[in-house]
């Protein structure tokens, strides 16, 4: 994951990426941290994403799925 920007996550495009960066989640690993902090709970993470940057159901689902797969593979 390294220093990839938050827009490299699935479901996070330009608009959402900018909103997340405004809130301080400027790197992918920060969002990963939030994901892990919420104990990889799908409902909580997706709700958080919706509240933070206004992601819709599909975007939040994609982002969650992406992070989960990454964790399953590397964590």
């Amino acid at each position, binding site marked *: 994951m390294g220093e*990839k920007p938050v827009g490299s996550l*699935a479901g996070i495009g330009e608009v959402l990426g900018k909103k997340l960066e405004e809130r301080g989640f400027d790197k992918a690993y920060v969002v990963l941290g939030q994901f892990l*902090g919420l104990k990889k709970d799908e409902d*909580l993470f997706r709700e*958080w994403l919706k*509240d933070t940057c206004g992601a819709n159901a599909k975007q939040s689902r994609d982002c969650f799925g992406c992070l989960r797969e*990454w964790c*399953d*593979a*590397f964590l």
Partner: protein
Amino acid sequence: MAGLSDLELRRELQALGFQPGPITDTTRNVYRNKLRRLRGEARLRDDERRRDEARSWSPERLREEAPLRARPAASFPRAEAGLSPSASSAGSSTSGPYGDFGAPASPWAGSRGLAFPARPGPLRRRASVRGSSEDDDDARTPDRAAAGPGRHWWAPSSASARPPSALLGADTRPGLKASRTGAAGAVRARPEAGRRLERCLSRLLLWASLGLLLVFLGILWVKMGKPSAPQEAEDNMKLLPVDCERQTDEFCQAKQKAALLELLHELYNFLAIQAGNFECGNPEKLKSKCIPVLEAQEYIANVTSSPSARFEAALTWILSSNKDVGIWLKGEDPSELVTTVDKVVCLESARPRMGVGCRLSRALLTAVTHVLIFFWCLAFLWGLLILLKYRWRKLEEEEQAICGPGPLCGLGAGHGTLPICGHPPRARHPNPPTEPAANEASVGPSCGIPGFQ
């Protein structure tokens, strides 16, 4: 809720059975919302519980539980509509179809067929949850009701018979109510349902066994056979002391015919008894059921004082008659039909006369073998079923062993790729090199979702 500190928020969440992660600036709102949601659900569950308890002690309980049993098909769509809003009430839905306070004794009572109109309200939600099981019960019990004789108070499969039996159902209800204890809920409803089931099954078994016994006795009786008199027997015919050997007027002819018939009757009896003896233990050590002609002739000559000519006339008469007289004339070649008296070698009775004991034992043996055959067939089919189930289970296990649990596995396997996402974790380098981008891209998870670019 806004005034809750992080620790208090955490404690509240844990009290409601939820384990939160770290509560930071970013996660605080999320957990606050979660707490709000959990509190709402808990409140709904308590409300339902209180409502059910209050209702369970009311005298209306009898009538109110009727719609749970009745479950006519028409109310199903309405009940379904009522089910969706109640789906959120986790408490009642998670405890399963029997997990309701004040639940009635068992759904079996419903299969007795009560046609109470379904009433609206939360009761119907539970009714619909139990609906499928009750439908199955309804379908099954009519079949069994048809099978079992004498169970007049089981409603027949037609719905029209249900209303009359509703009264009967109401009568049995006080008895059921007495057996029921208070509002305990899931655990108590299950054993009661089981007890009811047991009672019904035992009753069914009783009637089925009685019916089978009757059938068995009937078969025995038929097999024993009613002693059938020979068709031409004229027992009370006595020969008048008139010499009719050579005269051929009508009266004499009639008397001659009578004498012939009497001879035939004696012959028939003799052959039948011989055949019966042969079948039942053979005390006289006969070679076969077929009695040689000479022996028969000798016997007849002893019993009736008739000349041999009459014997031959009798045989001719048998040959010429189309009716089944119960005596078979066998020639040298058993498969060939005899046409003349000369060819007859032996006589056999078509209806051997056996003793009562012999008949009974033979009938019993036949019946038992038939029943055994039936059971063997059943056992064979059952063995087949078990084998198939075992095979099927093995296949499933194999599949699981290859793939691991998960819905996507079957799809991945079909495309010829193993699910890459299940790779073991890789050790990270202590000093991540500066060329991670190219590296990561090649080892990143390619799980069908656009990952890191």
